C-alpha cells in the first residue's frame, strides 16, 4: 500500500497529490510517469511525476477529474492509501544545455512541463514558460513556473487572465522578445499540442511533445499505448512518452483516445449517481 500524504484541489477539478512510494521517489526523473491503482477493482492509471522528495520517499502527482477513476481518486485524502504505485516508467532522457527553451503547458499539461522546465533551468538553459488554460481559475502552477523560468507568459481562452487567446499565439511573441529559440517542449490536450507543433513547424523550431495515450501495463507488454511516429508504430510507455512532435500522427492519437468514450461515460455516470446515493432514489420514489 502507498499512503497518501496530502491531496489538495489546486483548481476546480484539478488535484495535487503527494504519495509515499520510496522506491519510485528515489528513481523518478523529469519525464517519467507512474501507474497507480486505487483498489482491487481499479484500473491502471498513468500519471506523470511532477516532482519527488527522495529523502522522504514522496512522489508528487497532479491529476484532473476526467472520468470515474480520477473522480474517485479526488475523494482520497491523507489516511487513505493507493493499492499500487509502479514506476518510474517511460524514458526520461536528461535535458542537456541547448540554449533557449520554450516550455509550453496547456491546462493540466503544465504539470508534466514543470519538472522539465526545472531541469532545463538547472542545466543552464534560458527557459521561457508559456502557460495557458481555458480561464483564470484553471491556470495551474503559475507561481512554480515563475519561480523556475526566466519569463512566463500566460494566456486564457476567455481572456480572464494574461493574453486573450491560445498558447500558439505566444510562441512567436516569445521568440520575438527573447531572440532565437533552440527547443520547444509542448504538453497539453491533443488539439493544443497539435496546434503548437504546427506553429513550431512554421517557425522552424524543433518541438518535443509528451503523449497521454491509453495504457494498460505501461511496460511494453500490451501495445494499447501505440502511436504512429514518423510512420512507424511506437509504444508510448516504453518508447516515449516524449516524442518529436513533428513526427506524431495526432489524428490517430485522438481517435485512439476516444476508443472507450462510451464506457468512460457510463462508468462516470454510475459513479456520480452512486455518490449521490439515497438522494436519487428518494426522488425516483
Amino acid at each position, binding site marked *: 500500500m502507498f499512503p497518501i500524504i496530502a491531496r489538495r484541489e489546486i483548481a476546480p477539478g484539478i488535484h495535487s497529490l503527494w504519495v509515499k512510494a520510496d*522506491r*519510485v521517489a528515489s*528513481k523518478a526523473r523529469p519525464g517519467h510517469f507512474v501507474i497507480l*491503482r486505487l483498489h482491487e*477493482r*481499479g*484500473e*491502471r492509471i498513468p500519471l506523470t511525476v511532477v516532482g519527488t522528495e527522495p529523502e522522504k520517499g514522496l512522489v508528487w502527482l497532479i491529476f484532473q477529474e476526467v472520468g*470515474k*477513476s480520477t473522480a474517485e481518486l479526488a475523494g482520497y485524502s491523507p489516511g487513505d492509501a493507493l*493499492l*499500487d*504505485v*509502479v*514506476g*518510474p*516508467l517511460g524514458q526520461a532522457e536528461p535535458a542537456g544545455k541547448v540554449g533557449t527553451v520554450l516550455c509550453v503547458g496547456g491546462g493540466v499539461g503544465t504539470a508534466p512541463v514543470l519538472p522539465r522546465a526545472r531541469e532545463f533551468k538547472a542545466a543552464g538553459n534560458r527557459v521561457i514558460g508559456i502557460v495557458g488554460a481555458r480561464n483564470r481559475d484553471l491556470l495551474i502552477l503559475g507561481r512554480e513556473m515563475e519561480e523556475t523560468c526566466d519569463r512566463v507568459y500566460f494566456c486564457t481562452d476567455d481572456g480572464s487572465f494574461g493574453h486573450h487567446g491560445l498558447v500558439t499565439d505566444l510562441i512567436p511573441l516569445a521568440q520575438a522578445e527573447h531572440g532565437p529559440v533552440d527547443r520547444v517542449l509542448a504538453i497539453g490536450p491533443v488539439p493544443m499540442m497539435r496546434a503548437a507543433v504546427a506553429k513550431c513547424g512554421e517557425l522552424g523550431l524543433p518541438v518535443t511533445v509528451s503523449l497521454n495515450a491509453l495504457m*494498460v*501495463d505501461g*511496460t*511494453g*507488454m*500490451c*501495445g*494499447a499505448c*501505440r*502511436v*504512429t511516429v514518423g510512420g512507424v*508504430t511506437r509504444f508510448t510507455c*516504453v518508447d516515449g512518452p516524449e516524442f518529436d512532435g513533428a513526427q506524431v500522427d495526432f489524428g*490517430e492519437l485522438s*481517435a*485512439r483516445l*476516444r*476508443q*472507450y468514450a462510451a*464506457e*468512460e461515460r*457510463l*462508468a462516470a455516470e*454510475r459513479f456520480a449517481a452512486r455518490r449521490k446515493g439515497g438522494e436519487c432514489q428518494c426522488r425516483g420514489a
Partner: protein
Amino acid sequence: MPGRVAMPKQPPGERRKNFREVALGLTPELAVAEARRCLQCKNPPCVTGCPVQVPIKEFIGLIGQGDPAAALKRIREKNLLPAICGRVCPQEVQCEAKCVWAKKGEPIAIGALERFAADHGAADAAQPGRAVASEASPAPAASTARPSRARVAVVGSGPAGLTAAAELARHGYRVTVFESLHAAGGVLRYGIPEFRLPKSVLDAELDGLRRLGVEIECDVVVGQTVTLEDLWAEGFRAVFVGTGAGLPHFLGVAGENLNGVYSANEFLTRANLMRAYEFPETDTPIRTGRRVAVVGGGNVAMDSARTALRLGAEQVMIVYRRSREELPARREEVENAEEEGIEFRFLQAPTRILGDERGQVVGLEVQRMELGEPDASGRRRPVPVPGAEEVIPVDTVISAIGQGPNPLFIRYTPGLATTAGGQIAVDENGETSLRGVFAGGDIVTGAATVILAMGAGKEAAHQIHRRLEGQL
C-alpha cells in the same frame, strides 16, 4: 484393455457463456481406472518426454493404489507447480507422446492424472480446482532446507521465475521475486484465461511458494524501480532473469492502429488481469464487438477467440495463413474452440484492416493462400493465390501472431549481452554476460511453452546454486 479416459468437461453450449474452468478434472474413480491402465514399464519412456523429469510412472502407480497424497508428494520432488502443469502443459507432444500406449493412439492421460494428484492429493481435498487451495503440507524439502543462505533475486514471476524461485528456496536460499504488474504469475496471470487455468489454482501455487519462504514483491520494474546495481547493493548474491516474451507483434498491415485492433496480450490482459468482463463493476473496459477475427493459430489465438466468445461476441473467427495440420495450438484447445462454435478460416492471410471515418475497424481484408514448398521450419510455406482477396466484415481484430522479448530489463542493464533477435544471450550454464546474472525461459529462447520455461528456471536454479557454492 479399456481405452483412455475422457476428461469430463462443461458442455460447450454452457461453457461458452461463462468463464469457469472447461475441464472439470477426473473423478477418483476415473483417475484410478486410468492409472491402472499404466503398464508400469521397467524403463518408462514417458519421463524422457518431460522437461522437468517428473517421476511419472511412480506417481501414477500411487494414484492407482488410491493414494493421491503420496502421488502429489512424488510429483513435487520434481515439479512444484503440478496443478498448473497438469492443466497447461502440452503433454500430447511430451510425456504422452512417449507413452507406449501412444502407438495405439491411447496414451495414458498423464496430464489429467497430474492435475488429479494436485487437486486431490492435498489434505481433505474434495473438489477439483479448490483442492490445492486447502493444501496443508508444504513441499517436502522445505523442512530440510538450511536456512539463511545467500539472497537471490528473481526478475519476473512467470513460469520460469516461479520455478527458479521454488528450486532456490528448496536449496535454502532467501529468494525475492520481483514482478512489474500488480499481481504475480506473469503469463499465467495475464495471459491464460480463467477457463483454462483458474486464478484460484495459481493463487494456491503462489501460496505454496510463500510457505517455502519465497517473497514476492509486485509493482517493481527491475531496471527502472530498482537496477541491477541496487540489487547487488541490497545484498543479493545472484539474479535470475525470467522476464519472458512480452512484447507483442502486430500484423504490419495498414490499419493496425485502428480502434478495435488489439494485441492478444492487451485483449487477454484486460480480460484476465483487469477483469474487464465485470465492467462496469470493475473499472477497466474492453470492446469485444459483435464479429471478431483473431489472427494466428497458436494457443494464445485460441485463448483470445474463446475469451471473445465469452465476452458476448456473436461470431468469432480464427484467421490462419496455413492449414489445419500446421496449427501450432494444442489439439485439445482447437477441439474445445471448435466445439464452442469458433469458426476457422484456413489459408487466409490478413493484408489490410479497414476502418470507418471515426477510426473504428469495420473489416479485415484477407488474401487466400495455398501451401507451397516446405520452409525452414519444415512446414509447407503458404503462398498467395493471385486475385483471391476478400473482406471479412468485423468489429474487432485480435493479433495473436507472437511476441518478442520484453525490452525493459535489457535496456536498463548496461553490459548485458543480447542475441541478434534481442533475447538475452547466455552460456551453457544459463549465465549471462554479467557474472552472477542468469536468465532463462522465453527471454532467452523466444516465445515457447510454460513447461519449457519451467525447465529453464529449474536448470538455472541449479547453476546458481553451483555458482554460489563456488563450483562454477
